[in-house]
């Protein structure tokens, strides 16, 4: 640890430690409710609190029974399958559409750039409950409510803003003369896009896709409006689990979700560093 400067008075030192203490308190306030779930999910008893055995670190008081419960319950298995399926499909759809939109929006000849950007980003800004209600009435006209397709489309719309933002950010560092160079060598615009543009903006595309996946993965409001019993996702199942069958299964699921989120974050960070390295040496 760094030594405090010699000119520090009592109040300097007090302020220094007070700031540190406050910062850690805020961090604890943010993290504890999440972290507390992890040990609780290994509770041997069907309670949401620490038993005496758990506090004494008695191995008997811990078990993985709630994890086993997830994988033996058809409802949970269905919702896990749905979440991954809807998440992947929605993320793929929003990655493709979002990338195309970002490329178009970054073209110097694109008219009404600001207006279109604002419209495309609106699902991120408009309160979710309003988006969900609007989707419900709109989708019911096309028989998309209670359907798998409807949910994928809805989640793709919610995830697309993230893709547009990340891809636009990577494109802003893209040197347009690379595109012109490809054209001058005789490659068609589409070929240059595949061979040159896509490989160079890939980190942005992938991180946008991951964001879109996570958005769909933990989304519950739109699911409440649009999903039928067959389209239950993990958050939806947890939501009803909280009200109907109170047992630590949902804590086990939550722990798994935390694990997935952390791995996705790590993946994002690795991607970001890789793209920085690629650019750092390239230009």
């Amino acid at each position: 640890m760094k030594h405090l400067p010699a000119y520090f008075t009592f109040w300097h030192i007090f302020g220094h430690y007070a700031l540190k203490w406050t910062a850690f308190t805020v961090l604890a306030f943010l993290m504890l409710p999440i972290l507390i779930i992890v040990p609780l999910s290994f509770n041997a008893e069907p309670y949401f609190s620490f038993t005496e055995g758990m506090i004494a670190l008695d191995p008997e008081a811990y078990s993985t029974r709630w994890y086993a419960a997830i994988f033996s319950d058809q409802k949970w298995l269905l919702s896990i399958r749905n979440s991954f399926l809807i998440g992947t499909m929605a993320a793929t759809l929003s990655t493709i559409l979002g990338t195309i939109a970002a490329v178009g929006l970054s073209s110097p000849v694109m008219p009404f750039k600001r207006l279109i950007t604002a419209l495309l980003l609106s699902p991120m800004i408009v309160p979710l409950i309003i988006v969900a209600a609007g989707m419900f009435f709109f989708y019911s006209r096309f028989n998309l409510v209670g359907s798998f397709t409807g949910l994928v489309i809805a989640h793709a719309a919610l995830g697309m803003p993230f893709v547009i933002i990340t891809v636009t950010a990577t494109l802003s560092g893209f040197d347009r003369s690379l595109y012109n160079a490809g054209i001058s060598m005789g490659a068609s615009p589409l070929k240059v896009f595949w061979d040159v543009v896509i490989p160079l903006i890939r980190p942005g595309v992938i991180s946008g896709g991951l964001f879109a996946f996570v958005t769909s993965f933990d989304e519950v409001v739109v699911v409440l409006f649009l999903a039928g019993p067959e389209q239950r996702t993990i958050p939806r199942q947890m939501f009803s689990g909280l009200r109907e069958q109170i047992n630590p299964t949902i804590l086990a699921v939550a722990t798994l979700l935390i694990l997935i989120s952390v791995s996705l974050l790590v993946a994002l960070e690795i991607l970001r560093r890789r793209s920085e390295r690629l650019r750092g040496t390239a230009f």
Partner: protein
Amino acid sequence: MPSDTSEVFLKFNNVKKSYDQKSLVVKDFSLDVEKGEFITLLGPSGSGKSTVLMMLAGFEGVTGGDISIAGQSVTRTAPYKRNIGMVFQNYALFPHMTIAENLAYPLQVRKMPKADVKERVNEYLNLIEMGDFGGRYPGQLSGGQRQRVALARALIFEPTLILMDEPLGALDKKLREQMQYEITRLHQKLGFTVIYVTHDQTEALSMSSRIAVFNDGVVQQCAAPAELYERPANAFVADFIGENNFIPGKVVKIAQDQATVAVSGGATITAVASEGLREGGDCVISVRPEKLFIQPTSHAYDNEVKAEHVTHYYVGDFIRYYFKFANGTEINIKVLNDLAAPDFKEGDEGTLVWLTKDCIAFPT
């Protein structure tokens, strides 16, 4: 110079460009280029020279007029079908491909068989003396090496026309001179036609067969380097190419292309009369610093003007003297740094002499 007997390869015919449909960035640009010529478009930034290059490459549309290559108009041809090689200022090498992959790209686009591609890539790597660098990435090369690769990549598909957009702008002075030599060498060896854009006049003078000097969207003069330097068509060219002194005066008499000019302060100077000069009109006389001599000198002279010494700078291979005429006009003179370099103090009076054929009077 193009003549009636030679074949015109590239032709700009009254080419115009406007971005806003109001003001023209390029105004009626016309130029005939022969096969194998090295043409430089030279001018200050914003003079329209790069726009001409972009229109030729197809990255910018043509507002009016026509561009044709080998008799075929290209204004309606997509840029990727024009078969023109291009070298960019920032190299524009694909950072995610190795040097060999970069060089192979235009050949792959043309669906050349793999074995032939490999052979051609090796040939060009050797041509730029970078035979061992095929497996490296652009990020691992120095600026000069990257520019050589960029040059090879523009040449490898054997286009008959190569465009270079300030290709040496990002390099330091020494590397720039090396690359100038490299480009000239390849040009002479392979015989392609070059359209070269730069704002660096020494680069233009040393490499080009002809130079088109741009200002404000108009070509001021298009001529061989020596002619441009010795016989500038107007005051802009005289000022832009090399260094020049400008002495304002009034034309007294014009006879046989020679103007007699009265300079305020009493001196009379004879100069070559440029086009458009009228008797009785105002003019400026341009005379280059290295054509002026300080008395006593063994050089022949026609003009002789007294001037006050202001200061001088030691540059190395030459010494730069600053003088002031009686009317306040400042004059700078380059004198070779040899034993004859005179010693002056501030306020000393000297006599400057030069030949009539070394100075030109332009109308103002």
